[in-house]
């Protein structure tokens, strides 16, 4: 399996803080790669650096073979990367419809794709003309996710999509992720919920203190309780 995205010795500074200390990461095409780690390990910074929202101060980021670390964020997005930030970042003053119209860069929204999204997230249809600011947290997450997939993207960067959500909504998100992956998208997913990570991840990289400290198949980490405990301070058993 070829690699769609690679990070080589990537360093990121935010002001005077040195956050990423030489991250090496490979995301295989067509797979779901989980990026795990304790709070403050640098996972969100890694995603934001890939998107160009924070600039890499050293190292190399390649997407589809081309270097992107010096390109502006809009160009990186237009290369085929969708981003779902941890904060969801829906436009509160815009309606659900307007949020999706903006996300559909290439022109009018594809009705059949919209119907497919409504199948996973019916509230988006129900609240189609409501301001996004009036939605619940779960509905905002659905909208943020729908915005990233309203048009096909080669790579999806998703930052903690299940945080604080009800189990039913998490289930819908997992189903949607599986379908998006089946349609050929590659996914790099930051997740704190190990059960979710185990369910949808093909491979896993674990971060600690701004570095990748472990990379393996997801199933391998899920089997090894001691390794989980050492890397993440938890065991799968505690989450069941």
């Amino acid at each position, binding site marked *: 399996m070829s690699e769609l995205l690679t990070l080589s010795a990537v360093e990121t500074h935010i002001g005077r803080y040195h956050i990423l200390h030489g991250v090496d990461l490979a995301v295989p095409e067509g797979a779901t790669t989980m990026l795990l780690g304790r709070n403050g390990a640098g996972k969100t910074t890694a995603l934001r650096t890939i*998107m160009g*929202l924070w600039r890499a101060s050293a190292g190399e980021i390649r997407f589809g073979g081309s270097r992107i670390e010096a390109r*502006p*964020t*809009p160009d990186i*997005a*237009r290369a085929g990367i969708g*981003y779902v*930030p941890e904060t969801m*970042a829906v*436009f*509160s*003053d*815009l309606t659900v419809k*307007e949020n999706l*119209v*903006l*996300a559909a*860069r290439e022109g009018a929204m594809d009705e059949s794709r919209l119907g497919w999204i*409504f*199948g*996973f*997230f*019916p*509230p988006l*249809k*129900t*609240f*189609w*003309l*409501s*301001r996004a*600011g*009036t939605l619940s947290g*779960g509905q905002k997450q*659905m909208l943020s996710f729908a*915005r990233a997939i309203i048009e096909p993207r080669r790579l999806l960067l998703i930052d903690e999509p299940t945080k604080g959500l009800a189990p*039913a*909504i998490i*289930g*819908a998100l*997992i*189903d949607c992720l599986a379908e998006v992956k089946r349609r050929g998208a590659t996914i790099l997913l930051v997740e704190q919920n190990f059960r979710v990570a185990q369910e949808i991840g093909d491979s896993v990289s674990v971060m600690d203190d701004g570095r990748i400290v472990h990379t393996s198949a997801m199933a391998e980490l899920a089997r090894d309780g001691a390794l989980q405990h050492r890397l993440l301070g938890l065991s799968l058993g505690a989450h069941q």
Partner: protein
Amino acid sequence: MSVDTGIEPGAALPKARGDYLPLLLPVALALAALPFVPVSTWFTLTVAGLAMGMMIFVMASGLTLIFGLMDVLNFGHGAFIAIGAYVATLVLLPLGGWMQADSIWLNLAALLSAIVAAMAVTAVIGLAFERILIVPVYGQHLKQILITMGGMIVAEQLLYALFGPQQIPLALPTSLRGSFLIGDAAIEKYRVVAVLVGLVVFVTMLLILNRTKIGLLIRAGVENGEMVEALGYRIRRLFVGVFMAGSALAGLGGVMWGLYREQVNASMGGELLVLVFIVVIIGGLGSVTGCFIGALLVALLQNYIGFLVPKLSLISDILLMVAVLLWRPRGLYPVTSR
């Protein structure tokens, strides 16, 4: 798996509850003044307030968009007001014959020429102002205040150097002089035109903001520019376009104000800037509708207070701002979280 919300998809779509209370404030203010003023005077004062409010709105609308979208405190905005007015005087000088003619069409042709020239010149100067002065200080409010104040002073002094310190007359065209008489009330023709122009600008801005993709991008960019970029849009270009449009609107406001006062001077921009900032703060940063309501409130109150308690009119704007901020600390219709 999909999520059950208990609501039938597609059925009666619930909408956000509208916040209409601020829209009623100008009406409430006008009605509150009615018992204290003779009806004909009240009518004259109200139309004068509406006209003044529309002119202030035209000047302030650009500033609120610039602050909302770009997070730039542009204290140089007043320079574009003065430059617009001076460009109008330059254009109307050779068109004096058209301005004095009895034909309304020649009058309007002269005025339109002045307005188009003023807006074009201020838009281009706005582009240079943004590229040279603003770009190096994005995200640094203190430096923005200093450098844009500096830009304002330089522009003002250049106007003094080029045109001298004296007031320059800017006469109204023949067909806009005089008043309509409605009962005992005299309504100046130009004020009616100013109201109409202000309304056209307001409706056009609302249509652009709400019915076009550019408008969507501006509204989204005011709220979260970073996410707009992450969706693949080059918001920097949008910034430049909005800055140019905001400067052009200030230029238009300058022409309207110059014709209203029938004179222009180099310090008019600085004098109006305080009023413009008060309106932007009352309206809520980044909100065009809030700016519109704020401008009407400020102008109506100034006219009523000026008639009833002249000494109080000097501080009526500040009192209004304090009252609004006590009620809504982020202004009437805040858009940004800043």
